[in-house]
């Protein structure tokens, strides 16, 4: 999967020595450290790595040793540092551009203050790693043998001389030339100046460190075993790419895009699951996909039948089931959505609901007054509020403008949309306004036709969707990984196809997931889909099965036309407004039933769909046994393809 940490050894040479005695501190003269020198490619970033021989293969040492070790160059983010040279910040947009400002890095100062190398007798302490981008120059010296003096751009860090007692220095330099330009210094012909043509690539790598939970380094530290294993699949991809020859050149930009995305999106599985290593599961025979039928929308009459005279809703499970199967007639929506979204408790009486609404009305207008009463002067000094307001104004003008509720220039619907979004900023100032939120509010306001009710229903919906919009977009990452897990269960062959097109992490579903298909379906169909989803039936995360259902309908086209990364993205984007909601819901429900009847469901799938809790015995389903279906062709590939703990095998 694109998530994997790519670890390729590009060059390796044993019998390279460090002579610690040449250091000033004067350690035992006879101590020579022998080790191997490598050039490695980690996720596109090229490192030079030196490891003493005795050091057994411990992947956790490869990139960053533990925090206590001072023997390895460790990258730490340094907010602020250098940033001022890079960019002069501009007015209120300071925060907007923060990220560029902070993506400068420096090396972590050695915690024990002893300088770059710890003069310990432990040979493992001589391990060293640095990125080729950090190389400033290499001086080639002869002394009966060749030794190289590597200088880093940061002058405070010194690298000990590397002595090539068994030759190999030329090969090393030649290999290095694949990644950097080595040019003779005009002043000193033994000195090769290093220019790194691939600065942006290394910078994007650094950016990953910025995002703590997803940084490769972090991942690598946490579970080097899995990360390295996953890396192997990339090696095969690499070979495959090489075989593709010239075609690769045209493929490269999309692939680079894909790889970068892959680094940003996945990685969750590794952090989330409690046990290290793989959960290996044979490809599961899911059996027949049961046929299901959809029903008519619930009528106003049916709704009233479920309501006691004093207002309590009765037989709620049955009611929810009816809504799941057919949705609601439009006339019922205004009331029913308040229950479905949790604004009204099902068991509340009419009286209680009236009281609740009174309180909520007060609370709403109190918050509304807060932004309404901000003077121009104040707003001039409040860049966040100003930015939220500007975004909201722009987006309100571009949300559902063909809908009668929002069309034209002076439609009151537009003002309501604006005011509710502004008030939501006061309700949750940390989140504020993020693009996509106007899409989530618009149908709710359309149904409620009431500012206060719409606001509180929106608040409830946002409670579910909040993570999608947060700074790290954790919700999006989680969902993409969950979706990928489901798709691999339901249709491994298709997922493999997508993966072969660098699309295995399903980035193209981004818009679907961010705003729950709001842009994919007609307005009326969005209302239907959302009310069905809000029943919480027939399983948790039903919307992910909706994704699978749509993909199931599109896979033939995608595979037959042999779509690549770009074409898949385009094809999925262009499905917008061409989907049939009833067909999709029907298929998604079928998929759910099919999965539910499966006995040996992978644990991760049960967790995603919340099926464990439905176990009648009250105990979680037994973890599936590890069964290896080795006779099936191609299973090895499947295993190595998976970076996640679950490896499906066909």
């Amino acid at each position, binding site marked *: 999967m694109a998530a994997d940490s790519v670890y390729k050894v590009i060059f390796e040479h044993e019998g390279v020595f460090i002579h610690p005695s040449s250091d000033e501190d004067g350690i035992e003269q006879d101590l020579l450290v022998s080790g191997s020198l490598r050039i490695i490619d980690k996720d596109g970033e090229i490192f030079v790595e030196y490891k003493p021989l005795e050091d057994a293969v411990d992947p956790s040492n490869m990139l960053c040793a533990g925090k206590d070790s001072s023997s390895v160059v460790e990258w730490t983010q340094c907010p602020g540092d250098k940033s001022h040279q*890079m*960019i002069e910040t*501009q*007015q209120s*947009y300071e*925060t*907007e*551009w923060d*990220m*560029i400002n902070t*993506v400068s890095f420096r090396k972590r100062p050695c915690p024990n203050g002893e300088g770059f190398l710890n003069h310990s007798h432990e040979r493992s302490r001589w391990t060293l790693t640095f990125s080729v981008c950090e190389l400033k120059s290499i001086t080639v010296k002869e002394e009966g043998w060749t030794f190289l003096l590597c200088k880093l751009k940061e002058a405070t860090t010194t690298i000990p001389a590397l002595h090539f007692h068994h030759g190999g220095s030329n090969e090393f330099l030649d290999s290095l030339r*694949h990644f950097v*330009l080595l040019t003779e210094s005009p002043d000193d012909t033994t000195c090769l100046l290093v220019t790194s*043509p*691939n*600065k*942006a*690539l290394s*910078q*994007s790598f650094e*950016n990953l460190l910025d*995002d703590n939970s997803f940084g490769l380094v972090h991942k690598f530290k946490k579970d080097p075993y899995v990360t390295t294993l996953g890396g192997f699949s990339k090696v095969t991809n690499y070979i495959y790419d090489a075989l593709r020859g010239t075609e690769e*050149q*045209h493929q*490269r*930009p*999309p692939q*680079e*895009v*894909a790889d*970068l*995305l892959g680094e*940003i999106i996945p990685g969750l599985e590794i952090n989330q699951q409690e046990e290290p290593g793989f959960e290996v599961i044979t490809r599961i025979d899911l059996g027949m996909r049961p046929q299901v039928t959809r029903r008519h929308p619930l009528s106003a009459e049916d709704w009233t039948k479920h309501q006691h005279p004093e207002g309590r809703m009765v037989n709620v499970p049955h009611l929810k089931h009816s809504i799941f199967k057919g949705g609601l007639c439009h006339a019922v929506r205004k009331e029913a959505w308040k229950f479905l979204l949790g604004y009204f408790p099902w068991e509340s009486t009419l009286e209680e609901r009236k009281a609740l609404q009174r309180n909520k009305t007060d609370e709403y207008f109190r918050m509304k007054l807060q932004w309404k009463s901000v003077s121009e002067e104040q707003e001039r000094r409040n860049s966040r509020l100003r930015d939220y307001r500007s*975004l909201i104004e*722009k*987006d309100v003008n*571009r*949300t*559902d*403008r*063909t809908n009668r509720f929002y069309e034209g220039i002076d439609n009151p619907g537009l003002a309501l949309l604006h005011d509710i979004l502004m008030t939501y900023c006061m309700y949750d100032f940390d989140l504020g306004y*993020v*693009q*996509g939120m*106007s*899409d989530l509010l618009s149908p709710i306001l359309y149904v409620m036709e009431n500012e206060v009710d719409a606001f509180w229903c929106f608040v409830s919906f946002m409670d579910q969707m909040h993570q999608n*919009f947060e*700074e790290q*977009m954790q919700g*999006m990452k989680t969902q993409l990984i969950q979706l990928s897990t489901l798709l691999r269960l339901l249709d491994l062959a298709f997922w493999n196809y997508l993966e072969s097109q660098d699309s295995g992490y399903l*980035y193209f579903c*981004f*818009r679907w997931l*961010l*705003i729950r298909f709001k*842009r994919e379906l007609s307005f009326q169909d969005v209302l239907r889909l959302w009310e069905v989803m809000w029943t919480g039936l027939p399983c948790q995360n039903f919307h992910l099965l909706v994704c699978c259902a749509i993909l199931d309908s599109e896979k033939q086209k995608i595979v037959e036309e042999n779509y690549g990364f*770009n074409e898949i*993205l*385009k094809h999925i*984007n262009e499905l917008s407004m061409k989907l049939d909601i009833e067909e999709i819901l029907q298929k998604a429900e079928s998929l759910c039933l099919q999965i539910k009847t499966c006995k040996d469901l992978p644990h991760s799938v049960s967790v995603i769909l919340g099926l464990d809790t439905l176990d009648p015995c009250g105990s979680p389903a037994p973890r599936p046994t590890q069964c290896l279906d080795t006779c099936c062709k191609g299973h090895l590939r499947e295993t190595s393809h998976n970076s996640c703990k679950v490896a499906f095998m066909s």
Partner: protein
Amino acid sequence: MTTKTSLLKVILLGDGGVGKSSIMNRYVTNKFDAHLFHTIGVEFLNKDLEVDHHQVTLQIWDTAGQERFRSLRTPFYRGSDCCLLTFSVDDNQSFLNLGNWKKEFIYYADVKEPEKFPFVVLGNKVDVTERQVSTEEAQRWCQENGDYPYYETSAKDATNVAVAFEEAVRRVLAMDERTDHLIPTDTVKLHRKPRSAVACCS
């Protein structure tokens, strides 16, 4: 060898609301949709054209501008042949941000020689009467920041839209002719995207 079509990737960058999506749609479909949604995620459209006897397929990428989505936007900068820096003449802040967009692009796009990269600057919405940015100001910025071509466009009434894209193509083609001669063969591997297709018909 016969003339081949080369695929050029251009990307529209600029603040939200300056009209990037509208410009793309105007150019590719020759329509202006006043009810267009704001962009979520990334989209692209293709357009075939001929410039100075070169057959070109333009792949035009359009992104969402909000900060929150930066990490999912910037990977798509990779492999761009040209960047259209866009602001709106009725929004001074969008003009002030041009420099930031340029930096963000260079930073994430893996641009080898930023000084030589073909940027084209678009001042959109010239049909609007209440301007906040004058033509002179914009031209000065373009001159001072790398002598970029500047076009005042309107997605609404189609002013200069096609011309700007054609100029973008010319810039890229001119770049390629230069680099194809300058890059020594052994470093071609490092070159982002060798485009033999273009070289052979020049």
